[in-house]
């Protein structure tokens, strides 16, 4: 049992430790840093595989371009939401921020899938779908670790929410980056594989990242 005197002495003791602290950067600025990291990886992949293949695919199927851009937008929005959710007192509405771009991403992917069904004569861009899953999961791991490390300096009071946003940010970044060099197929199996990969990354992050980000 405590008493007011012990609270006063605790305040005095904490006051004696009032050293200057380095403030956490705002969620927007940290999200900008995250965007720079993703842009750097994209720049490397473009340098490695060239722009031509991707532009050709985008011209042949604009929905693929829309899907890729929406994936990048989701990656930035989800990263921003994760940074914001890691600050005490932030609104849970931040979880809705990546929703519009996520819907566009899923919608354009689904539209591509429908186009393929409606016009089966269109040239298939098929490659083994398992590659997508492996790439998205493999690249999501270091990206998720990076985001978790960045978030650990904050204080997420609802770590599972923040970790789920980390999962979405890293999975969407990986899916967007995949499109730079990988001829994405608009078939249902490929779309399903993408969804499985993204859900897997979000689920693992929510389960493990939630524990790693647990308030001390």
């Amino acid at each position, binding site marked *: *049992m*405590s*008493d*007011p005197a*012990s*609270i*006063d002495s*605790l*305040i*005095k003791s*904490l*006051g*004696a*430790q*009032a*050293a*200057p*602290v*380095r*403030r*956490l950067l*705002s969620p927007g600025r940290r999200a900008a840093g995250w965007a720079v990291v993703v842009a750097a990886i994209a720049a490397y992949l473009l340098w490695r595989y060239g722009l031509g293949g991707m532009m050709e695919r985008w011209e042949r199927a604009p929905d693929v371009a829309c899907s890729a851009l929406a994936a990048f937008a989701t990656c930035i929005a989800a990263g921003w939401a994760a940074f914001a959710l890691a*600050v*005490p*007192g*932030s609104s849970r509405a931040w979880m809705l921020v990546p929703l519009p771009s996520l819907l566009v991403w899923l919608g354009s992917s689904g539209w591509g899938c429908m186009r393929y069904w409606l016009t089966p004569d269109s040239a298939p861009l098929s490659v083994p779908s398992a590659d997508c899953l492996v790439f998205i999961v493999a690249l999501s791991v270091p990206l998720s670790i990076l985001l978790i490390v960045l978030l650990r*300096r*904050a*204080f997420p*009071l609802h770590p599972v929410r923040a970790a789920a946003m980390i999962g979405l940010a890293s999975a969407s970044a990986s899916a967007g980056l995949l499109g730079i060099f990988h001829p994405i197929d608009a078939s249902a199996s490929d779309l399903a594989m993408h969804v499985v990969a993204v859900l897997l990354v979000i689920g693992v992050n929510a389960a493990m990242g939630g524990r790693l980000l647990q*308030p*001390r």
Partner: protein
Amino acid sequence: MASLTTAGTIGLYIDFAPRASSRTRVSADTPTTQEQASQRRSAWMAAAQDGDRRAYERVLADSVGLIRAVARRQGVAVDALDDVVQETLLTVHRVRHTYDPARPYDAWLAAIATRRAIDYLRSHGRHDAREIHDPLAVELHPDADDAAGETERAQEAARLRRAVAELPPGQREAIEQLGLQEHSLAEAAERTGRNTGALKVNLHRALKTLRQRLHGGS
């Protein structure tokens, strides 16, 4: 060292505090006063982040009422509020770098206090659940009224009495006064006429001797 920001915020709280207390015609609960108090706490916390001790102590002291209110709302019992206050203050200290002076301090604090109140209720819920089983455990404990156990305890007490009686007079006196009769050092010194240093030495030697005689240890 006070930075420009710190100096500015010190100015703010020196300016704000008397005004808030001298407004006798305005109720303490009016939105304006509440808003002023919230702004004042934000300014203090910003200064505290820059290392201003006075501002830090003020904002912590000013936060106690808010933390209590949040804890009460979460269902924490009145006699446990101070525990939640202490836990919250310690957390505030550890994560004070996460406060953004552009955002309301009260919302930031309330979120931390809510979390600590929930943590308290969870941990004490578990503790209370364990406590429920304790009387049963005592009742079922095989040694509670065990005649053999009682005899053993009586024998141990007799051995201890004999060992104390065999101690040299100075050591016996120290253990009786400080150990058995639980007098303070000052009281024991007054009763025996010995100084406290000698009593402490004798007590230490007596405990060592008893340990050797009863357990055979060093």
